[in-house]
């Protein structure tokens, strides 16, 4: 079980759940959760490749994943701030209700 394929497969499942979540959730925060799933799936990939690819020296996969987590944190902060702003002006966090601009 402990093979590259199994990790990658798990990652794919996470990725797909993430995509599904982003596309189907109305709530901004829930969408954010979907995005976190996608980021996690990518991270899982990176770390798995790092292990099975024999890239021992400087662990680029780990480092990459680390930066992704940092980025995720930043993005989450900004996204939440924006969602809260949305709540202030639109009185909702359902993103599909913010569709004044279209066409």
């Amino acid at each position: 079980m402990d093979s590259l394929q199994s990790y990658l497969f798990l990652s794919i499942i996470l990725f797909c759940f993430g995509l599904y979540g982003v596309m189907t959730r109305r709530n901004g925060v829930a969408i954010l959760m979907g995005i976190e799933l996608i980021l996690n799936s990518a991270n899982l990939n990176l770390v798995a490749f790092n292990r099975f690819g024999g890239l021992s020296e400087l662990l680029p996969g780990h480092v990459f994943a680390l930066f992704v987590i940092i980025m995720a944190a930043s993005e989450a902060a900004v996204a939440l701030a924006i969602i809260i702003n949305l709540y202030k002006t639109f009185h909702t966090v359902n993103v599909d209700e913010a569709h004044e601009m279209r066409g």
Partner: protein
Amino acid sequence: MGNVVFIGVAVLVVVSAFFVVTARNLVYSAVALMGTLFGVAGLYVFLYADFMAAVQIVIYVGGILVLIIFGVMLTNKIATPVLIQTSMPNRALAAVVVFLIFLGLTTLLFRTPWHEGATVAPEGTVATIGQALLTKYLIHFEVAGVLLLLALLGAAYLSRRENG
């Protein structure tokens, strides 16, 4: 034994991820997300990435997840279940698209002869990462710092109530 644990963790990840994107209540989603994040941390352990596992728990579970739950709190009343799903046709369409992607990626996964090298020795990764961050990845580190700064200032600006 290892396999059993691995399967357990994998199931945890998959099931909780499923709940994250399907739960009707946002709070359940948040809780399920926590499960997923813990599961992924567990997988990191299997991948000999002890540092990453730690970071996962500390930053993700401790930071981002809390942030998200704050977001939930600030914008919802916990008691009332909120409709957070979009309409059925939309979900069906999304499911089709995602399923296609899933099929495609899975097919590729099993077709591709992945580059398999020697398995990394199971020694601690903390030191290596630390070293890497101060040498080869120094600039990345600095850039990440700027990114954090920007995010911090930006989030602060956006959520701040202007006086006047």
